[in-house]
């Protein structure tokens, strides 16, 4: 199990807000579990990141460290304690 911090665009921050002064974070056991673990940890964020098929929304990207999970063949060791997970909106989205 590793613990990651989560960063999202300002428009989505209200959906991951937790204890004031703390950095939002979540835990997952492996790279394959990152997306389901994120959804469980931040249910109000989920409809804004994933569509009804479970796929990432067209203009949304998720990075684990420097790896874009949509495009990259992310190495297993990218998932480790303290890694930064970022949600971003693609330039194609605006």
């Amino acid at each position, binding site marked *: 199990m590793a613990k990651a911090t989560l960063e999202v665009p300002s428009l989505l921050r209200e959906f991951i807000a937790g204890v004031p002064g703390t950095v939002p974070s979540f835990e997952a056991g492996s790279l394959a579990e990152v997306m389901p673990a994120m959804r469980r940890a931040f249910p109000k964020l989920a*409809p804004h990141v994933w569509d*009804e098929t479970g796929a990432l929304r067209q*203009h*949304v990207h998720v990075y684990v460290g420097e790896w874009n999970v949509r495009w990259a063949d992310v190495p297993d060791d990218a998932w480790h304690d303290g890694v930064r997970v970022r949600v971003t909106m693609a330039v194609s*989205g*605006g």
Partner: protein
Amino acid sequence: MARRILVGTDRGVFTYDRDASGGWQFGKHALPGWRVDSVVQLPGGRMVAGAGHFAYGTTIRHSDDDGDTWTQAGRTPSFEDGPMPVLPDGTTRKLDAIWTIAPGGPANPEALYAGTDLAALFRSDDGGESWDEVMGLQHHPSRSWWAPGGGGMCLHTILTHPTDPNQLRVAMSAVGFMETTDGGATWHTRHEGIREVETGQPESEVARCVHGVAPHPDDPDRLFMQFHFGVFRSDDGGKAWRHIENGLPSTFGFPIVVTRSGAILIIPLLADLQRYFVDGRLRVYRSTDGGESWGPVSAGLPQAHYYGGVLRGAMRTDLETGEVVFGTNHGELFHSADEGQTWTQLPGRLTRIMYVSLA
């Protein structure tokens, strides 16, 4: 008496508040960054909005502090989490927008309804915190023939009955006008007299591109409809319709309201492929004889070189005061204190106005 005007735009909610002299003052800008397709304020003070974003999807939010802070509904309208995530043909149902939000009215004061794109009806009984789909509508035998109009396939109009909690009427583009009398379990189309539009579907029971429907305040079965091609009246709850277009410069438009004394107001646009005010003049067309004849109202409205439009959710009337408010897709807000006979532009120029409500 309405004390607030709420305006849903593609850049958030704007509010206007009535001042001590009875005029309207700009209030606040809320939910910036979100496209607000619908927004209402409930009698208890809670604001409920359908907020979307082309990258981030659509959810319902509510605010209990006049719009300063908003909370996303705990169970927001969702197909994915409901009983029919996928249509029988295998198509995943995707929620694109919350087109309208309608309180249940005096017969159903605890209910709140939401109409969506993809066309569906949701109901909340806890002030907008949790929403469940009214599944009976999706089980209508015509469902596989439903097709979108130019604005998507949206359920945009919800008419509650003043005394019967089990009766509900909805309009969908480009599907039609439907009624339930058993609380939403079964639904019936109400299209007699209205020809279908070309949707490419073989089924003729639907394919009615209804743009807006408004009831007479004294008779819920006397209905007025702005259709894609025509303006109609029904005196039997929508079972039969007839054209009422004498004096109109165009039969194409979107919003329709009926004021407290029964005046019908519409805003014609030139044509379906030329969606702007006829002759570049913003004129409200008004009928005071139940639609038998129409006349233009231009007092207080721009009358030269104006090629805007008014979207279907962007005009509303207050049945207590007779006030009417509409917003344009260019961001201007106009108010009438005399049931639409004269108009005054309210302060500010916003952005594309999708929705107006009074509270």
